[in-house]
């Protein structure tokens, strides 16, 4: 690997020390052209020499998220510069997304094995979305959950014998449509009376016998959401 220039942005001296040590020990190709403890120092350094990689801590001084803003600015001003986030915000998932949106190439959490040569190299080789293990675990966990949820939906459709009309009916009920409004939908070949029957039928399918009394449209829709028949995040009305 060819040598490359790095600027480390870290406000805690002791941590900076550790990070520098990692570079020295594990990534000797990296030439630390400067370290900055705050925003001002960093931009000063940038004006002096543009690095190949910026190792950016998200929290600087009193601000825990200033890194997001810095990342965005780097990306807009220095498109070629690789940005690797090295942060202790191990729980703030939202911030991860923010910083990825701001243009970061990867996020390394200051936990576990910390910064590893492989991760830095991947970034330097132009890989996007480079994460260390703890963050990957989280991403995989979320992904599994999503996939499971989707399979839950298809399972529910089969389990509760939901046809496209049932789904459309439930979805529009959830969107606050009245039965008359639903009956007037282009893709809904049923009258309001027929929908009443369909609703009663759905109640008998989705609720055990002991819980059917007093179930109204709201309760039915809620149940459909709980059973993953409806996806709360994708409640969209049919285009008419």
């Amino acid at each position, binding site marked *: 690997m060819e040598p490359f220039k790095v600027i480390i942005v870290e*406000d*805690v001296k*002791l*941590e900076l*020390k*550790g990070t520098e*040590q990692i570079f020295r020990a594990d990534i000797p190709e990296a030439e630390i052209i400067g370290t900055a*403890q*705050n*925003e001002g120092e960093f931009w000063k350094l940038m004006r002096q020499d543009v690095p190949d990689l910026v190792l950016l801590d998200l929290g*600087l*001084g*009193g*601000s*825990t*998220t*200033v890194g*997001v*803003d810095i990342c965005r600015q780097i990306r807009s001003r220095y498109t070629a510069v690789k940005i690797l986030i090295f942060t*202790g915000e*191990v*729980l*703030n998932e*939202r*911030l991860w997304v*923010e910083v990825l949106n701001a243009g970061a190439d990867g996020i390394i959490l*200051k*936990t*576990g*094995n*910390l910064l590893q040569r492989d991760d830095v190299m991947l970034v330097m080789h132009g890989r996007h979305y480079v994460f260390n293990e703890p963050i990957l675990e989280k991403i995989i966990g979320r992904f599994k959950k999503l996939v499971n949820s989707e399979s839950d939906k298809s399972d529910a459709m089969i389990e509760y014998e939901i046809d496209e009309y049932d789904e459309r009916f439930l979805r529009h009920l959830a969107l606050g449509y009245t039965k008359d409004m639903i009956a007037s939908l282009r893709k809904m070949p049923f009258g309001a009376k027929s929908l009443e029957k369909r609703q009663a039928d759905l109640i008998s399918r989705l609720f055990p016998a002991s819980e059917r009394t007093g179930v109204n449209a709201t309760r039915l829709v809620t149940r459909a959401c709980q059973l993953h028949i409806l996806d709360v995040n994708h409640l969209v009305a049919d285009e008419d």
Partner: protein
Amino acid sequence: MKRIASLIAVFFALVACSPHGEEQRMEIDKCNERSYHDRYINIDSTLFYATRAEELTSKGRYGWYEAQINRAYVDYQRMDFDAALERLAQVTRSSRNQFHQLSAHVLYMKIAQRVGDGETFFHHRSRAQKILARIGENHEEPGEHYAQMVTYAQSELHIVSSTYYYYLGLDSAAVREINEAYDYVRDRHDTAQWINYNYMLGSGGLILGAPEDVVMREFDHLFLTYTLATNRGYRYFEANALQSLAVLLSDSTRSADIALQRAASCSFLSTQFACEDYGDSLCFAMARRAVTLFEEYKDLYQTACAYRTMGELYFAHADYLDALEAFQHALSLVENQRKRSRQTVNPWIAGIREKLSMTYSALGDKMRSDQNRNIYLDLLDQYRQNYESENRLRELKHEVASIRVKTAVLFGLIVLTLLLAYVFVRRMNRRAQQSAQRLTDFRASAHFQTLTSEVADVRKQLAEDTEYYRDTLQVSRMHIERYKAGNVERRAKVSLVYSIIPYLDRMLAEVRKMVDSGRPDEERLQYVGELAEEIMHINDALTDWIKMTQGQLTLHVTTFSLQEIIDVIALSRPTFEQKHLTLQLPVTDVQVKADKALTLFMINTLADNARKFTPEHGMVSIGVERAEDYVEISVSDTGVGLSEHDCSVLNDSKVYDASSIGASASSKGFGFGIMNCKGIIQKYRKTSQRFAVCQFGVSSTLGQGSRFWFRLPKALSVLLALLCLSVAPSKSFAKSNPFEAMYDSIYAANVEGRHAQSLEMGIEFVRHLQPPYDTAYVVLIHNEIAVAALAMGDWPTYRRNNDECVRLHKLFTQDKSIEAYCERMQELQSNGIQVYVMLIIVSLIALVLFYLLYLRKGLRSDRLYSQLFTAVTSYIESARNHVAQYGDTSPAHLQQTVEADDFIVATEACRSSIASSGIGNHTMTRSANLVIDEVETLYQTIQHDVQQFLTLDEQCHKVSFEEDRLYVMNQIMDNCLSTIKHETMYYPARAKQLVDNMHDSEAPMGQMHELLDLLQYYREVYMLLYHQADRQVEQYSFRRQTLSAREALETFVSELTESVRRQQKRDITLRLVADEALRVVADKELLQTLLHALVADGLPNVESVSILAQAQPTDVLFRITFHGITKSDEEIERMFSPDSPSVHCLIARQIIKEHDAHCGMPGLRLHAEGGDADYSIVFTLKRA
């Protein structure tokens, strides 16, 4: 009434008989009965026994009246009518015995019939009939004696009536009467009456049918009468029968027929009177015998009649002189009687006069004949048949008078009614006015006043309570402000705790690398040592900080009833029901001394855990047990339970992995809340010796359920707590009248003695007579024909015309005026009745109209007014009751009352009842509605106050909830931080020690492994404790608002100035530069806390501070410049770093971090900038 009358009669009868013995009574009865019995046998005997009976008793006593009747009969037969009438008058006047009255009236009738006094006749007839009707209605048996009297009276009444009508020429009426008499005589008990009946039928005119048959039947009756009377000694009837038989047989045609058809009877009669044939000799014999018998019997009337009969017989045999003698004898007898008595028998005299007229005519004495005829005609005039009319007239007069009286009374009543109506109407109007006035003046009424004062009382109470609640709310808000500041401080502490993690991770990473490489690295070791030192440094800072704030948040220990907490727990019942769980709550009066918010938190946490880990249809129960000095509160469930190991961990371990507690993976997470509960109990124990009894424990069986319990000290004074418990035709004839003309010519012929011509003209005229005719002239014509016939000696023509004349005369002479008067009277009566009826009808109509038009309206109005008044009064009562419900100003009660408040229903009901009442008087309804409006307004003020109060109470609840939440959160965070401090202090120091030792160690790798183990355990424990604290951090207290930057800064500046002046007793120059339009997104309280935190460090030494708020593209930049103070670069650098020595800076950092996280825009700045003669703190907030 009749019953009473008869009872009275019986009473008098009893009184009358009382002094007599039964024997004497019988004797009297016997005499009277004998007297009655001998009436037609021997009139002297009748008199004798009657006198005897009279002697046996005394006036008015038993049997006396009856004796008087019998004596009156004797007087009647002797034609001493005055005496008879006097006796009868005594009876009718004094006797209360209706039987005596009846007998007296019947005798009156006989006398009236005989004297031809129709008026009296009918009067007594009707009286007698009334008595009979009364007796008929009285079903009581009158006794044999009286029964006989009644039967006699009934038969006699009809027989006399028949006689009366017969002489009036009203044959059909006479026949009707005699037939009616039959009913009472047919049983022949009263032989005399039976004979009388038969005589009546035989005497002629009362039997209808073919003349031959009639003669035969009359003969039969007379013969029967004769034989019966002869056999039984009834001389009177014997004489009468003979007289009638003599007249009957005097006609040769008839006598031949009778002799042929009734040979035996005729034979018997001829034998009896020693006659050879049934011709004239027998008639004369019988007539003479009759005269003899009557003379013996001493019946003057009948004697005269007998002589007249004799005269007629002589006349029939043209023996006019003997006839004249007989008639004159009869007349003399009559004239004698006339001298004795005022009452005389006119028809009797008339009859004799007519016969004399005929006899004189036959003798050729035209002058005497005419004389007698004129007397005859005069008498006829007097004897009219209109007595009935007269009687009716009198009755009518009587009735008219009665109607007049009744009308007068009715009129009087109407006047009285009108008067009463007037009074009533006046009273009603007055009452209506009063009612209206009462309604108008309702505001002054006691009802309304009471309501007003009650409303005022309730409002006053509410105002007081509202004031109190406002204060409470204010205090709570201050608490929240403080707790929020405290909370952010604790969050800052937690952040500080967290800041150790990266160091720890770095240590671990370094050590792992060394372990992996198998050799210690000096540089790395040094770095690990430095990191350990830094951790120790942060720990120290944390410890200092915790120490510094220790005592700032103490437990709020109060004495309270556990029931209050249980009532709050009860509110979460639906969440249990949703999961089909039974939540059992105790009812307790236990008072405990503890922190209420924390106790609620603990029970809630435990109950919540139980709910989470108990499967459907299970049960969660909360128990309260009292011990000597503590109260044990337990939460039991029928849930999944805990393993023995988990139980021991929970009971004994200070530090454990809360997330690992629980029987199965699905039930993991049992431990966090429990850890907090344990922490709270620990805090109690640490606070005071009083809380030494505080303990926390758990007992559980896997799969069967758990029981969590904790103990709190019992309140000392239970009593103190108990105190806290409360609705005409014109009669003008034209001169051309043919009747008048005919009469004039016939009369002229008679006067001129041209009797034959007169007779011829008359008969010719009468033959062609066709109705209608003028009765008066027809009578006169018949009279002239009779006169002519009389003069001519044409007896049959005379008889026929005389009879016709008499008949028509009787008809014509009916007193038309009386009739007319009668009619008038009748009319008057009917008019009277009509008037009477009209008056009644008019009165009724008037009453109905009065009722309908006024009274009903009035009454209805009156009733409606009173209903209205009642409605309004009861409405006010209802209002008072409703107001009274607000007397208890406890929020729960008020809330319940407001929800159940049906006053609007009462108001609407009252309004609709007024509207539906349909009172025309709008003033009234308006007044009522005004009262209702006023009451409603009054009531609404209370409702408004209550609503306000409840809103306030709700706010208080909300604020109090927030307050408690923050308070509990802070307490728990304190516990967590305290635990972290206590449980983890050792590790970094030990790590440092190990690192240090490694430098000199011969076998450093052993220590390196030890270090790794230590650090791994340290991290594990640390993370456990951190997560516990972090869970609290996750509970947001952040409230995002859009604020005016200038306002926020002005508030800050004024507070700061005041604070400096108060605390440092000096003034500070504060310059503020901020655009008014500048708005930021922030938490109001946190922003103030931030500002205060930022100036806190520099404040003691600074004299001038300028604050600038500047707009930037997406945010607002705040710059606080401390003039005259400088900071070194290092100080500036470290100011907001995690290892900042300033707690205020750490808090400021935490606040910015939270705004970063909750305002939807990461990248907020917070840093310090140094200057030549000052330094500035810069921070940004999202621009709104």
